[in-house]
């Protein structure tokens, strides 16, 4: 652990050491930048420790076609990221893209999904985003373990998953090996533009750098205004159940159920607006369990070994925010609730762009300025 980093040692300070910050820091370091990550400590609202680990494309981008393309692009490049991580650290993050399902337990649910997919695809060329609507029999043919209550599914071959904790660790390992200074327990109190760069202060002291990238999740709401940016993100609580390890039997990820490479089955995902409360609520666990058991009756006998809740980082429209400050060029904000899916983009595409000083044109739609202007039809 570095004890102090002066401006002469660092080109970019990344504020936030989760999966988003780690992915960008890795990309920056691979492009030759000297990087410092300022992170909080052991207890923090870390979406990176609580996420569901999908690399997901289907159903994303209704209302913002650019988000669909951006997600697709990251999913397409995820094999490359997995290769990079393996090469840099020897860690296999268990990435696979076998295609993903969204199972429906009623005709209503299935119809709703069908309409959503249709509206989504009306926005873009269908050919690029293959998906299928399956009935019960076809779903059962592909996943023989489903229960009788499954009326059908949406399937997309683009979807996959990863071991997100291994990803998190591999990013930390890779950045460490690339010489990135990681500084825990460094909550940033202020960021001041100075000498064409930035000075970051906190109880830890101060760090100066030419560029600053805000990847502090929910903390971005507080930090962004310090450099003329806006990140109006709010917490959205989600709960997850994980079972004991069992022999592999779920070969495809689903929106609410997936089996990890270690063997445990993860079950999600609730969505609640409860501020910063992260208490696990049993009634929600029960509803998630009940649905999971109807989807796969054999899950009923498995022991639950853990549950947790975590806070998604949600913008007002649910889409990511990518911005460079107009008043303080060199200050960037990155915030999203799909840090795992987008990790490939963050390392391979976004980081080099940040270093070059300009965000790619494809990200123009993601500016937080979209929240400030009246919507036009």
């Amino acid at each position, binding site marked *: 652990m570095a004890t102090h980093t002066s401006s002469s040692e660092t080109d970019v300070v990344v504020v936030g050491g989760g999966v988003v910050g780690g992915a960008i820091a890795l990309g920056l370091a691979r492009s030759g930048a000297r990087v410092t990550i300022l992170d909080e400590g052991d207890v923090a609202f870390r979406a990176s420790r609580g996420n569901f680990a999908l690399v997901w494309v289907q159903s994303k981008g209704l209302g913002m076609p650019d988000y669909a393309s951006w997600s697709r692009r990251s999913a397409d490049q995820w094999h490359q990221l997995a290769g990079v991580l393996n090469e840099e650290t020897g860690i296999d993050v268990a990435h696979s893209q076998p295609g993903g399902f969204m199972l429906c337990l009623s005709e209503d649910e299935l119809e709703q999904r069908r309409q959503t997919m249709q509206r989504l695809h009306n926005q873009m060329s269908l050919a690029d985003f293959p998906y299928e609507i399956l009935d019960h029999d076809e779903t059962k043919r592909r996943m023989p373990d489903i229960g009788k209550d499954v009326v059908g599914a949406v399937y997309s071959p683009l979807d996959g998953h990863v071991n997100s904790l291994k990803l998190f660790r591999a990013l930390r390992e890779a950045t460490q090996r690339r010489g990135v200074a990681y500084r825990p327990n460094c909550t940033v109190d202020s960021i001041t533009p100075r000498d064409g760069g930035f000075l970051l202060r906190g109880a830890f002291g101060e760090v100066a750098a030419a560029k600053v990238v805000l990847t502090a999740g929910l903390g971005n709401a507080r930090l962004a205004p310090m450099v003329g940016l806006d990140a109006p993100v709010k917490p959205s609580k989600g709960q997850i159940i994980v079972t*004991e*390890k069992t022999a592999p*039997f779920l070969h495809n990820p689903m929106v609410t159920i997936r089996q990890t490479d270690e063997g445990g089955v993860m079950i999600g995902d609730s969505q609640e607006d409860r501020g910063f409360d992260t208490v696990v609520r049993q009634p929600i666990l029960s509803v998630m369990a009940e649905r999971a058991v109807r989807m796969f009756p*054999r899950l009923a*006998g498995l022991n639950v070994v853990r549950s947790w809740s975590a806070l998604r980082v949600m913008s007002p429209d649910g889409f990511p925010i990518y911005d460079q400050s107009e008043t303080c060029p060199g200050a960037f904000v990155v915030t999203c609730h799909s840090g795992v899916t987008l990790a490939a983009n963050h390392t391979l595409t976004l980081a080099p762009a940040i270093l070059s000083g300009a965000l790619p044109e494809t990200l123009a739609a993601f500016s937080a300025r979209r929240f400030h202007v009246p919507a036009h039809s």
Partner: protein
Amino acid sequence: MFRPIAEAKASDGTRVAPVGFTFDGRAMTARAGDTVAAALLANGVQACRQTPVSGAPRGPYCMMGVCFECLVVIDGIGNRQGCLVPLRDGMRIQTQAGRRQPDEVQS
């Protein structure tokens, strides 16, 4: 290997009939009132499972429900804590071989 210090007796002094069970198909007996884990120890069974991570052998460690080392398959249901389950006549107990198998989940 554990051994009884005295012949098992009921509180009125009468001899209690032992309970019969099998472990991995081998017929065994133990004292009525024993837990599954104690019954295995009394029959010289030290390892009752292999870990799901490395396959290393493990046996009962705490006997009070906190360590989860005495996991066994009982009457077809996997990953049960042997130290908390009272032994019953005719129980079919098996080694928990690594992570739970699909056929060990019916309840």
